[in-house]
C-alpha cells in the first residue's frame, strides 16, 4: 500500500514525534516493525480467513486522526453515570489519553502500580518491556500492527503476588471527538495467587470515530482474573478491541464480553492456557438496525489438564449481522484437556444474519472437547403461552428475548455491574418492564 493511498501513513511522520516511548529502543523497534506491516497490509482484509465475515471497506473510506493534544477533557459526569461503577477504582482514557483528573484510585493498596501507559514507559520502561508485546504481536493482524505503531497512551496495572483486590478496576474508554482515532494500549499484570476483577467499558459521543484498543494481560501462577468488557460505542463508531491473555500454571481467567454498541465492532479474545489452568469465556452480542458485531475467540491449550468453557449468545434484529468465530487449539502435549464451546443465536428479523464458525483443532489424543451451535427464532409456542397468560404479543416477545440475553448477564458476579447491564439490555428492548 503506498502512502498516497494511505492517509494514515502520510500523517505518521508528524505524529511519531509526539508518541510516547521515544527514548525506548525496544519500543521503537516494535513501532518500526508495526509500521512496516501496516504500510504493506493496511487494516485486515476480508481475504484473511479470520476476517472473511467482516468487511472493513467502509472503514477504509474514512480517515480517523489521533488526538495529539492531551488537553483537559470536559466530560459531563451525568453522561458518564450509567457506565462508571460507583464501587470500583476507575481509570479513565479520553480520546486515547489517560486522564488522572477523572480517574479514581483512592484506597487502592499502595503495592498496586497503576498509571498511564505514557507515564509508565517514561518511568518504568524496563518493567513494561518485560511484558509489552509478549501476548500479541504485529503479525496477528492489521489492527495489532496499527495499535503498536499508533497507540498514544493506555494504562499499566501491576498487581503484586498474593494480593486480593475486593473491588473491580474499571478502565473507561471514552471518545468525544468526531473523526478521532483512539488507539490505546493496556498492560495488566497479576502476580502469583493474586486475584482481581478488571472491567473495560467503551463509550463515546454520538459521532463517527475509531476505537482501536489492545490489552495484554498476564495472569500469574494460581492467580485469578475476572475480566469484563462492556462495549457501548456510539452507533456510528468503529470498534476494534483485543484482549490477549497469558495464563500461567493453575491460573484462572473468567471473561464476560458484552457487545452492544458500534456500527462495526470487532472483538478478539485470545488466551494461552498453562498447565492445569482454567478459562471461561462468556459473551453476549446484541445487534439492531445495521450494526455489524463480530466476536472472535481463540483458546490455545498448550499444556495438559487445562479446561476451557465458552458460551456466546447473540440477538440480532433489523438488518444487523453477527459473527462468532471460536477457535480452540489443543496442542499435542495438552493431554486431558477439557473444552466446551457453545454459540446460540436468536434472529428477530428476516433480514438479520449471523455467521458462526466454531473450530476445534486437536492434536492430542486423550481429550474431551465439544462444541455446539444453534440459530433460531423466538419459539411461537412460548409466545402463545405468555399470551394465554394475559401478556400482549409484543411484551411476550420482548420478555422472551430479554430472558434469552439475560442468562449471560446473570453470570456476572458483580451486582452493580449486573444491574447496569440489565439496564442497558432493557434500553435495547425497551418495552419490557421488570
Amino acid at each position, binding site marked *: 500500500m503506498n502512502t498516497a493511498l494511505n492517509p494514515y501513513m502520510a500523517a505518521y511522520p508528524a505524529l511519531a514525534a509526539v508518541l510516547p516511548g521515544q527514548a525506548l529502543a525496544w519500543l521503537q523497534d516494535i513501532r518500526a516493525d508495526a509500521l512496516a506491516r501496516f504500510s504493506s497490509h493496511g487494516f485486515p482484509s476480508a481475504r484473511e480467513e479470520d476476517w472473511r465475515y467482516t468487511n472493513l471497506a467502509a472503514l477504509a473510506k474514512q480517515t480517523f486522526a489521533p488526538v495529539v493534544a492531551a488537553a483537559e477533557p470536559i466530560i459531563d459526569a451525568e453522561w458518564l453515570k450509567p457506565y462508571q461503577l460507583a464501587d470500583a477504582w476507575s481509570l479513565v482514557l479520553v480520546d486515547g489519553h489517560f486522564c488522572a483528573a477523572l480517574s479514581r484510585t483512592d484506597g487502592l493498596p499502595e503495592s498496586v502500580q497503576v498509571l498511564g501507559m505514557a507515564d509508565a514507559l517514561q518511568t518504568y520502561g524496563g518493567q513494561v518491556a518485560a511484558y509489552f508485546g509478549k501476548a500479541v504481536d504485529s503479525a496477528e493482524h492489521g489492527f495489532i500492527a496499527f495499535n503498536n505503531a499508533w497507540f498514544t497512551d493506555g494504562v499499566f496495572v501491576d498487581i503484586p503476588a498474593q494480593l486480593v483486590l475486593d473491588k473491580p478496576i474499571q478502565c473507561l474508554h471514552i471518545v468525544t471527538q468526531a473523526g478521532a482515532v483512539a488507539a490505546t494500549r493496556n498492560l495488566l499484570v497479576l502476580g502469583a495467587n493474586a486475584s482481581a476483577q478488571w472491567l473495560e467499558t467503551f463509550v463515546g459521543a454520538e459521532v463517527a470515530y475509531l476505537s482501536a484498543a489492545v490489552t495484554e494481560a498476564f495472569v500469574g501462577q494460581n492467580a485469578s482474573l475476572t475480566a469484563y468488557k462492556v462495549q457501548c460505542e456510539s452507533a456510528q463508531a468503529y470498534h476494534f478491541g483485543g484482549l490477549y491473555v497469558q495464563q500461567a500454571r493453575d491460573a484462572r481467567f473468567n471473561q464476560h464480553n458484552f457487545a452492544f454498541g458500534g456500527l462495526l465492532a470487532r472483538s478478539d479474545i485470545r488466551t494461552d492456557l498453562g498447565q492445569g489452568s482454567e478459562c471461561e469465556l462468556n459473551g453476549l452480542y446484541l445487534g439492531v438496525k445495521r450494526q455489524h458485531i463480530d466476536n472472535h475467540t481463540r483458546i490455545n491449550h498448550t499444556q495438559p489438564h487445562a479446561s476451557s468453557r465458552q458460551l456466546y449468545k447473540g440477538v440480532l434484529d433489523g438488518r444487523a449481522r453477527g459473527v462468532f468465530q471460536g477457535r480452540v487449539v489443543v496442542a499435542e502435549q495438552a493431554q486431558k484437556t477439557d473444552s466446551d464451546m457453545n454459540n446460540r443465536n436468536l434472529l428477530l428479523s428476516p433480514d438479520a444474519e449471523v455467521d458462526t464458525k466454531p473450530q476445534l483443532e486437536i492434536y492430542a489424543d486423550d481429550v474431551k472437547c465439544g462444541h455446539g451451535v444453534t440459530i433460531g427464532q423466538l419459539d411461537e409456542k*412460548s409466545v*402463545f*403461552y405468555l399470551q*394465554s397468560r*394475559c401478556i*400482549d404479543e409484543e411484551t411476550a416477545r420482548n420478555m422472551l428475548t*430479554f430472558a434469552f440475553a439475560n442468562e449471560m448477564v446473570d453470570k456476572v458476579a458483580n451486582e452493580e455491574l449486573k444491574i447496569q447491564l440489565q439496564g442497558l439490555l432493557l434500553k435495547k428492548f425497551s418495552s419490557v418492564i*421488570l
Partner: protein
Amino acid sequence: MLSIKDLTVNVNDKKILKGINLEIKAGEIHAIMGPNGSGKSTLSHILSGKSGYEVTGGSATYQGKDLLAMPPEIRAREGVFLAFQYPVEIPGVSNVYLLKAALNAVRKYNGQDEVDAMDFLTLVKGKIKALEMDEKFLYRAVNEGFSGGEKKRNEILQMAILEPKLCILDETDSGLDIDALKVVADGVNSLRSPDRAFIMVTHYQRLLDYIKPDFVHVLAHGQIIKSGGPELALELEEKGYGWLEDGQVAA
C-alpha cells in the same frame, strides 16, 4: 357464559371440527371426552386463540362477545384460562415474574392499580401452599426442569392467581399419578364457584371421580355425538367409545 354454535374448524384444509354446539353457563362443569384424534385439543386451542386453526363456520360467544375475534391475551384478560396439556418451558423467566406480570395485565385491563409487591407475595404463598408446592418453584424458570406433575400443578397455580371465569383444562389429568391427580383435583375443586365455569377435556374417566362434572359430552370425528350427565362417563368407562362411534356411522 359461553355459547358455541355450529363451529367448524380446519387445520391445513383438513376438517377437524365439523359443527360443534355447546352451551355453558356460569357454575357448570362440562367434561368433554373422546378418543384420540376426535378434535378435543383443537376445541381447547380454538377457544384460547392459538394460531394455526381456520374457523370455517359458526361462532363462539363469550359473555355476549365474539370470542373468536379477540387476540389470545384479550381472551385471557376477559377471563378465559387454558391449562395446557403440555405446559411450555420458558428459561430465563421466573415463575413469580410471570405470575405478577399476568396478574397486573388483568388488573390493568380492568382499570385496577398494579398489585402491591407484599400483597402479591402473600397471595401467591397462600395459593402455593394449598397446591402442596415448594416455594422454591416461584423463583425457578417457568416449567423448566419441572416434572409432569409439577407442570400441571403450576398451571393450576396460575389459574388460582388469575381467578378466571372460564377455565379450560386440556387433558390436565394425563400423565399424572394418583397423588398428583388428587392435588390437582383439590385445586380445581377449591376454585368451583357459582360465577365460574369449567370445561374439562379428558381422555380418561378417572379424572371425573375427583372432579364431578354436571355434563359429559362425547366428541368423536369432530362432532359431539352424545351428551348426558355424569353417568355417561361411567357408561363410557364400561363400554369404551366404540358403541357410540358405531352408532354414529349407523345414523
